[in-house]
């Protein structure tokens, strides 16, 4: 790979960012979507987030984890408990990360 190839590839990737994020924003006229699809789209962002989160929590190298002694599980439990107690995202991140670091650094999980 030469530097020029790399630059071309990277500018292409930036164009793909615009193309995908703006796909339905490109045409001047509305693209008619069936009503059921418009209604169903309200579940799409939720599903996309869950689809990123769930494998990060329960998979290691593509395999389901087989031990309870995985620091991610108590971290998620703590973050979950904090969220439903206070409904605050920052505290959710901090409490989960704190549990993770204590187990990893303190107990070697």
């Amino acid at each position, binding site marked *: 790979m030469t530097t020029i190839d*790399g630059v071309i590839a990277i500018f292409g990737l930036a164009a793909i*960012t615009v193309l995908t994020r703006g796909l339905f924003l490109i045409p001047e006229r509305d693209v008619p979507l069936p009503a059921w699809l418009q209604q169903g789209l309200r579940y799409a962002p939720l599903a996309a987030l869950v689809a990123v989160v*769930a494998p990060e929590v329960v998979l290691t190298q593509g395999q389901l984890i087989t031990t309870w002694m995985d*620091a991610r599980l108590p971290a998620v439990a703590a973050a979950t408990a904090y969220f439903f107690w206070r409904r605050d*995202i920052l505290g*959710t991140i901090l409490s989960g990360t704190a549990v993770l670091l204590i187990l990893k650094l303190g107990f070697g999980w």
Partner: protein
Amino acid sequence: MSSTCAARQPLWRHPEFARGAREMTGTALGIGAWALVTGVAMAKSGLPLPLSVLMSVIVFAGSAQLAALPLLVSGAPLWVIWATALCINMRFAIFSAGWRRYFGQLPRGARLRMAYFAADLNYVLFLRRFPDPAPAPEQVPYFWGGVACNWTAWQVPSLLGLLLADSIPTAWGIGFAGTLALLGITYSMLHDRATWIAAAVAACAAVAAFALPLKLNILVAIAAAVAIGLLIDRTTPKHVRPMEDRT
């Protein structure tokens, strides 16, 4: 007259700009941790530093970057690299259908400029702020406020990760803070039986389909959640839901 005055006011002085930025700050720490780890991973991929910096600054799509890097380093054909990024970013195309309902009347240049900066969390928070899919003047400043916060929270740590890769201990698992941020956002979107079930179905689908290439498991999960969501919507008695766009 007041609307003309409001239009002359700089965008970032609009109260909705501040609100958009403020509502993004809760997750900014998690986004930042995630960006830092992404930057470190990019630095260790073997791509020359100037190219990595260019990629981080202009591509602005973390998972597509991470997938494209090894392909780029190993000299894969351009079309393979681009097709990979296209598939991984496909969820954004789904969101763009939602953006259209708010920003469809803006000029095309403005639409595409906004699309470029519209990351996942911008969409999620925007829909929470404006559940009714009809254009309103305060939407544009709110959007840019959220973008300003999210872009900064991503780019600064990403560049730090690139430059300080050797002194940042990724083994501590700090990138997991990004997952926790998304987890919190996910919980905040669960407000009735349908969303809980759709989320559970999406989680199972994403894990079960994880072996698919190009993160296609994300699209599988979206399809499964939309299908089950529609099924629940049609089989439960009608009642007013805040996120529903027609009554």
